[in-house]
């Protein structure tokens, strides 16, 4: 069977979703590592971003793949969602009530995360790359109106990341099943690592707007 046929089968699409989802999760961990420099101080954060920028075209290649992952993940998800809707005549009330929330709302939380990503690119990413206007990276994030200088941005950021965590709660465990890890001796380790990704890492992201958007202004 050709690779095309593999990727267009339902199981193949899910494998593609699982792999792209996990790769994006790894990126998320790396992204948080960079963000935490904000807590170290202005110079540290600016220095870190400068260093990344010095990588030049390597960053652009990485960005290309990340966007590709996001779109192929969303594309497969939407196609499967349509297939699933077609297959079902009536969802029985019992199964509706008993589907775990994170699974039931995975498509919804994913859509919100996508909207968040679009705004994230058009604000932070665009500013950092093309529209700095003499501001420091640190200032853009902590004080500007596209950053946590605006309480609205902070609140939207917190909600979106919380939904991302909720998305990953279903997504990462589901990826374990799709990649056949569940039911093997690695299941427990996998689930423990999954919790880092769907709980602790989103919490790390949320700590930034909570601190720079609100707490630092109150204290």
């Amino acid at each position, binding site marked *: *069977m050709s690779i095309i*046929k*593999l990727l267009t*089968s*339902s*199981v*193949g*699409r*899910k*494998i593609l979703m699982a792999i792209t989802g996990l790769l994006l999760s790894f990126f998320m961990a790396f992204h948080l590592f960079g963000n935490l420099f904000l807590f170290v101080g202005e110079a540290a954060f600016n220095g870190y971003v400068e260093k990344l920028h010095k990588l030049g075209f390597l960053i652009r290649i990485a960005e290309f793949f990340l966007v590709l992952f996001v779109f192929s993940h969303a594309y497969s998800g939407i196609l*499967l969602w349509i*297939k*699933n*809707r*077609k*297959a*079902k*005549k*009536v*969802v*029985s*009330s*019992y*199964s*509706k009530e*008993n*589907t*775990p929330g994170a*699974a*039931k709302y*995975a498509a919804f939380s994913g859509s919100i995360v996508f909207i968040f990503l679009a705004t994230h690119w058009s604000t932070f990413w665009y500013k950092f790359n093309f529209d700095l206007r003499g501001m420091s990276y640190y200032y853009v994030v902590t004080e500007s109106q596209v950053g946590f200088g605006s309480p609205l941005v902070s609140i939207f950021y917190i909600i979106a990341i919380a939904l991302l965590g909720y998305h990953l709660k*279903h997504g990462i*465990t*589901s990826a*374990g*099943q*799709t*990649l*056949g*890890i*569940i*039911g*093997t001796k690695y299941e427990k380790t996998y689930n423990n690592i999954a919790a880092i990704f769907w709980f602790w890492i989103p919490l790390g992201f949320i700590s930034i707007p909570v601190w720079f958007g609100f707490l630092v202004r109150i204290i």
Partner: protein
Amino acid sequence: MNINLKIWRQKSDHQDGGLRSYRLENIDPNISFLEMLDILNIKLVKEKKDPVAFDHDCREGICGSCGFMINGRPHGPQKATTVCQLHMRAFNNEDNILLEPFRAESFPVIKDLSVDRKAFDRIISSGGYVAVDTGDALEANSIPIAKEDADEAFLSSACIGCGACVAACKNSSAMLFTAAKVSHLALLPQGEKEGKERVVNMVATMDEEGFGACTNTGACSAECPKEIGQTNIARLNREFIKSKI
């Protein structure tokens, strides 16, 4: 005991159906659910009305013929029990009981509670068998199989193909059914040989038949009368990935 039934009546897949109410009085709590429906049907026939169509055969919980939704759950409220093995004592006096067919695009209604599950047969005929020569009865004993593998394979082979998994799933996915057969044969040396083609062909047929994809909610295993586990689906996924490497 007295019960109030609401039953989905539908003449065929091309006609619209609807719920109809029936009341039965003085039902012995120790009769089976299907015997209760027999009593209803005898009553309907005597009244010169159309009896309720429902599938059944062995009434021992092993053939997989029976099955419909009782109060929104495939095979009713009792865990690991087919409709035929369910008894009226699982209900209370004056209960309202709602009966509907297994609903899925790939399971067209034949009549009332009876649905066409031939899509399952087509999934099986696309690979759910062993076609290589595995020898005769003697070889069954001369090929050693680890006890754990034999036990696992047996649990997977317990699937009776009733379709409750599809009915329970919010996506009408046939993954649990397909995975049970793929697992059953993948765990045994006799089935291993054709493992690669089997999983690919069975998944392809499952997709062609219009079943949804699995979103790992686990509803199928929770409602399965034979308690086929989620690990079967993980094994199918593993087999699928393995077939590509």
